[in-house]
């Protein structure tokens, strides 16, 4: 367990567990199922629960900014259960489908949007080696998956058979397709510094203190973070870029005709993608799951190398605990960025649609291209001036070989069948 | 381990290709024809990638497929611009109406 990524794979864990259980197949199978169910439900609970929490947070922050209290009644002093109560109310509501709507597409569209934004969590690592699918091109894949959400929204707006919804969908399509370009270019800058599309590798390279974070790598990366955050806010259609649902002009935009459960799926998808883009920002620029302070990171490192004797040989208990803490750090960091998005929403007024497009095409695209070029040339300039590729801090560590921690499902299943045999 | 094999992927590619050709032949909506083109290109891509996995051709198949994807995106952009122009001039997207040069 020397390399940070060399955590135990599931198959290793299983085979070792098998040895411990004295070849008792049922014990292995039960343990496997138990572990799988616990971790899957924890992950599901996290990604399903976070949007619910953010909806509550949004109402609370909005209330405070507007000098009122926000929800206070349901679930105690702070209105903790407000979102749950709203959810129950929404599920009970009638599922209306307008007469002019294209009913099949109308019914499917919310699910399309929901699947797209929740699928992004598949490749979002929450801690070292804690990732659903450890794809080598994870950063690329997550951007691709996030870009699919627009499709559900366009189809929803179009199939509603209402002019407000159609306007909202058209705006959304134009906005999302345009903002994807600067967002991808800005995300390329830290990927370029890391030399990898693997989000885990990118995050690992930022260990060892705040000065190793890619946001402080060079001035271009510093600016790129703000550029990325702006485009990310726009790409999850948050204010001041929420033209698709501008209630002062379009009633409610693309979800005008939706009610009840399908409407709430759009909202869950929106808050889930807020977390996803914030998570990407944390992984790419803000040090991933590391605190950035020297002492806690040393503690994490110590925990990772601390391997007490557990019944299951090869199971790194210290690494497990460290990962558990690191996952908390990651979620807290991402939640801070989400809070920032909420803050921005209730502070800045909404732009006009032409201003939104101007901001993207005339400002953000050239700015991001310039930042990208600068980030490419920065190491050359610094090397010629100082003789080393980075300004301060140690040169970027190279993570030489990446043993991907989780096997593809086929391998696991196959290994499991072997175990059972 | 269940082996899927090359033929199965080639079958999928063939079905996609044929669907695309039929789509191009029978649709009169210009954008429907474009969708047919996309299906044909995807059928070809499935074949490329399948060959790249199951034969010693290796990476060449994937590289070619990537070029196909990029070219298809470019093709869609231009074709859509043409379709919009067509709509501006003819107020319809029915491709059978574009017969003014027939003399």
């Amino acid at each position, binding site marked *: 367990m020397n390399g940070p990524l060399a955590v135990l794979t599931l198959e290793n864990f299983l085979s070792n567990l098998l040895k411990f259980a004295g070849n008792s197949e049922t014990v292995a199978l039960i343990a496997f199922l138990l572990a799988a169910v616990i971790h899957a439900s924890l992950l599901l609970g996290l990604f399903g629960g976070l949007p619910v929490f953010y909806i509550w947070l949004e109402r609370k922050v909005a209330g405070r900014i507007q000098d009122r209290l926000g929800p206070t009644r349901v679930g105690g002093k702070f209105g903790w259960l407000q979102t749950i109560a709203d959810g129950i109310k929404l599920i009970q509501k009638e599922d209306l489908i307008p007469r002019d709507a294209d009913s099949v*597409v109308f019914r499917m569209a919310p699910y*399309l949007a929901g699947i797209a934004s929740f699928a992004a969590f598949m490749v979002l690592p929450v801690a070292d080696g804690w990732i659903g699918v*450890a794809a*080598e*091109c994870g950063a*690329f*894949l997550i951007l*691709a998956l996030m*870009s*699919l959400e627009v*499709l559900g929204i*366009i*189809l929803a707006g179009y199939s509603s058979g209402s002019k407000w919804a159609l306007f909202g969908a058209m705006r959304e*399509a134009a906005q999302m397709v345009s903002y994807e370009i600067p967002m991808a270019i800005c995300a390329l800058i830290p990927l370029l510094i890391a030399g990898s*599309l693997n989000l885990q590798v990118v995050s690992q390279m930022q260990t060892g203190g705040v000065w190793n974070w890619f946001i402080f790598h060079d001035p271009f990366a510093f600016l790129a973070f703000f550029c990325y955050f702006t485009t990310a806010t726009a790409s999850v259609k948050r204010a001041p870029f929420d033209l698709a649902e501008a209630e002062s002009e379009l009633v409610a935009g693309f979800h005008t005709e939706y009610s009840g459960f399908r409407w709430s799926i759009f909202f869950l998808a929106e808050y889930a993608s807020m977390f996803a883009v914030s998570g990407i920002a944390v992984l790419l620029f803000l040090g991933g799951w590391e605190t950035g302070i020297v002492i806690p990171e040393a503690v994490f490192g110590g925990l990772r190398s601390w391997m007490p004797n557990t019944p299951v040989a090869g199971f790194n208990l210290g690494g497990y605990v460290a990962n558990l803490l690191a996952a908390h750090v990651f979620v807290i960091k991402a939640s801070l960025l989400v809070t920032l998005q909420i803050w921005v929403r209730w502070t800045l007024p909404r732009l006009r649609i032409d201003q939104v497009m101007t901001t993207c095409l005339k400002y953000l695209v050239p700015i991001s291209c310039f930042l990208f070029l600068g980030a490419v040339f920065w190491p050359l300039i610094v090397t010629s001036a100082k003789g080393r590729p980075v300004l301060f801090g140690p040169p970027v560590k190279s993570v030489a070989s990446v*043993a991907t921690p989780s*096997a*593809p499902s*086929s391998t696991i299943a196959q290994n499991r069948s072997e175990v059972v045999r | 381990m*269940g*082996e899927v094999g090359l*033929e199965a992927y*080639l*079958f999928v590619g063939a*079905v*996609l290709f*044929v*669907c695309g050709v*039929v789509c191009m*032949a*029978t*649709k*009169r909506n210009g*954008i429907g024809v474009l969708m047919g083109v*996309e299906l044909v290109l*995807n059928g070809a891509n*499935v074949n490329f*990638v399948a060959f790249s996995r*199951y*034969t010693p051709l*290796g*990476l060449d198949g*994937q*590289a070619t497929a*990537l*070029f196909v994807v990029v070219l298809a*995106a*470019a093709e*869609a*952009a*231009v074709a*859509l*611009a043409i379709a*919009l*122009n067509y709509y*501006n001039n003819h*107020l*319809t*997207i029915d491709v059978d109406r574009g017969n*003014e040069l027939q003399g």
Partner: protein
Amino acid sequence: MTEQLLFWVFAILTCGGAVAVVATQNVVRMAFWLVVSLGSVAALFFLLHADFLGAAQLLIYVGGTVVLLVFGVMLTASGHTIKVQASPAEVMLGSGVGLVLLFVLLFGINSVDWADVSARIPAAGDSPAVVDETQDRHLREQLASATTPEEKAAAEEAIQAVHARRQAGRTVRQLGLSFYGLRPDRDLNQPAGQSLAAGYLLPFEIISIHLLVVLIGAAYLARAKRRATSGPGVDL
């Protein structure tokens, strides 16, 4: 087993989506089925160990091209154009010819011995996927024939090493290098003095320029113009 199951699910979705695109007359529903079909093709790419290509398919096709198409539908569909139907005779003829074509293709695919064909291809440095597959099969045979526990453990370890190598999904780096004009997948482990394999630097540059030209051209073609009024040859 899982791979087979996933293959069948996505193959059926791909083919079903494609057939639905042909069978549907409503353009928006066609776009929806196209999304289903192309998304499943992306899943097939993942199954074929082409991670980067699958992600590119999702980003460019499903997230880009289809959105563009739907955008086009919105700009052009105005009630009477949303359902432009071909005559039944044309549909019958088209689908008949299509069925014949499908039959020919399937028959052709079935009658070729693909193992023999790929054996005859000059294997100038096997692709990593193929190497892994053959190695994997070999190791599995070893595992099956192993008698002592030590042999068995060694074979299992080797299989895991192969899997770990394969899971790295190395096509990203390799594709990048090949666009750079380098082909480590071909040129490594080759006898000295052999000419190097061709990379894709020139095609890559050409396609970059091509994309730029297309960007400008499409913007020029689609620029706002005076809308045609009802004139000769146009009946609404």
